[in-house]
């Protein structure tokens, strides 16, 4: 018997503090696998968000530097410009990147800063208890959109990835999800490609990952995964939004 699946080496053995069925846990493992397979552990630097994943440095066995809420793109800009031959990535939630961090993210993309961003979209502010986020969809109930997000009162959700695809400096933008094994594998391929795009100096790359938040959506994990397919992905369609590389190669 040969072991064909085990914990990635670039993840520490610390058990996750995330809720049962949380997308962060799956995504952390997927990123760990990519770091292992592309041999990046010694040259990668990660920037965690403010949010549930603020303690990401307890899980990833790589260099990591804390950013204040929303400013990951600015930190990554400074860091990557200082160390152009390392791989720099930010890991940011929807509030971090599309509310407080919008300016920094859009301008990093516009300037074509050569780092990668993993944008975890679960449609709520998880860590602070489930408030409305820029990506909360119309009708979605949150603690600051009682009765569901209403157009007139709360405005429309933000499709940040589509906006970033317009920026001339963005090289590769894809939206995936982690709500099924097939989607998880696609997410892994997308992240690997984003790192490859960075290594080749093509410009800004971003993977938006639709991620379940069972606790704040008030659903069981399985139900949350279904909701992503049936409802969330209608407003945030999966697929490649921009790809200047034009190649169809896998990363490994």
């Amino acid at each position: 018997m040969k072991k064909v699946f085990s914990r990635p080496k670039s993840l520490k053995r610390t058990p996750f503090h995330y809720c049962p069925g949380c997308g962060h846990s799956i995504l952390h493992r997927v990123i760990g696998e990519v770091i292992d397979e592309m041999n990046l552990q010694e040259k990668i630097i990660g920037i965690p968000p403010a949010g549930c994943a603020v303690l990401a440095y307890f899980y990833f066995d790589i260099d990591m530097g804390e950013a204040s809420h929303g400013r990951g793109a600015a930190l990554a800009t400074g860091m990557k410009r200082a160390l152009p031959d390392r791989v720099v990535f930010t890991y940011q939630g929807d509030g971090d990147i599309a509310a407080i961090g919008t300016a920094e993210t859009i301008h990093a993309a516009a300037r074509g800063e050569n780092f990668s961003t993993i944008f975890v979209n679960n449609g709520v502010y998880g860590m602070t208890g489930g408030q409305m986020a820029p990506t909360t969809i119309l009708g979605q109930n949150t603690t600051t959109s009682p009765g569901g997000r209403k157009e007139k009162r709360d405005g429309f959700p933000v499709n940040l990835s589509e906006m970033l695809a317009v920026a001339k400096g963005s090289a590769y933008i894809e939206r995936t999800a982690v709500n099924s094994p097939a989607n998880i594998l696609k997410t892994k391929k997308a992240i690997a490609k984003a790192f490859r795009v960075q290594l080749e100096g093509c410009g800004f790359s971003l993977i938006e990952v639709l991620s379940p938040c069972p606790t704040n959506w008030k659903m069981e994990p399985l139900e949350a995964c279904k909701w992503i397919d049936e409802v969330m992905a209608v407003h945030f369609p999966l697929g490649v939004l921009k790809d200047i590389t034009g190649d169809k190669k896998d990363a490994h």
Partner: protein
Amino acid sequence: MRGNHVLAESAVRAGCRFYFGYPITPQNEVPEYMSERLSKLEGGVFIQAESEIASIHMVIGASMAGGRVMTSSSSPGISLKQEGISFLSALELPAVIVNMTRGGPGLGNIAPAQSDYFQATRGGGHGDYRTIVLGPNSCQELANLTYEAFDLADKYRNPVIILGDGMLGQMMEPVELPPEVQIKKLPHKDWTLTGAKGRPSRFLRSLLLDPIEEEEHNWKLMRKYERILKEEVRWETSFADDAKLLVVAFGIAARIAKGAIKRMRDEGLKVGLIRPISLWPFPYKAIKEFTKKVRHFFVFEMNMGQMLEDVKLALEGNGEVHFYGRPGGIILTPLEISRVISSYYYQKKLG
């Protein structure tokens, strides 16, 4: 050379290769100079960021990576940077932040002022932290103090603020620039984020959820600040030995006061000056020493009374303090301030 250019050139000679800034009068010459200078240097990085908030966070990123980094702005922009400065202090990251103070509060004006003394020395950001604050009063001092700021920042792993003002930035004086530093010969930093090659991975963070850990971290910072308090206090005195009235002023106000004091000395008034150069750590002891010989102190600042509070703290109730301030960017001439000081001198029957 113009003050803003002196500051920029001195920073580059100190080994600064990373500058992130944003246009705001009266310091626009700094990003403009840096953009030109760094584009010609190997490894030089200049970014005009999308905001002062973005630029302070780029400073954090580049500092984490081990570089000598600088940002500059003026009053409202420095307000925007406060969270970043708190983070730099908490994370113990070296960085140089330049404030060319302008009239305020709010959008204010573009004339020179000294109304950011509290913001700089009391820390406008959240939490218990201190930044070293240096107050130059001439282009030469801009050159020297900016150069030293990078060494101080690295030595203590702390942000250093150069508290200038609009006049200092615009004035033109002859200056002797410091020699270029050899970047490769700078001391190695063993705490930076560079990719975990040949060593265990590390992280830099200021989130300490356990109050016991957070308390210990605060004490650690305080112990560092104690060391700075002991070793980095700077001040200068002029005509102070036999003074009956001691003027206390910093930065451009001290420059103007010096001119006034020369006039008054010519007329036989025994007025002297003590000029704090490090605004944090503030020269409390040096000022208190003077209370043995001097009873009257005259604080002159281009604000509504900020350094005044530190002077009162220094005196510990000994002696009388008179305050004369002009906010909003009004610049007195030496003649004008000499009249105010002389009138007070005679009023107090010191002549």
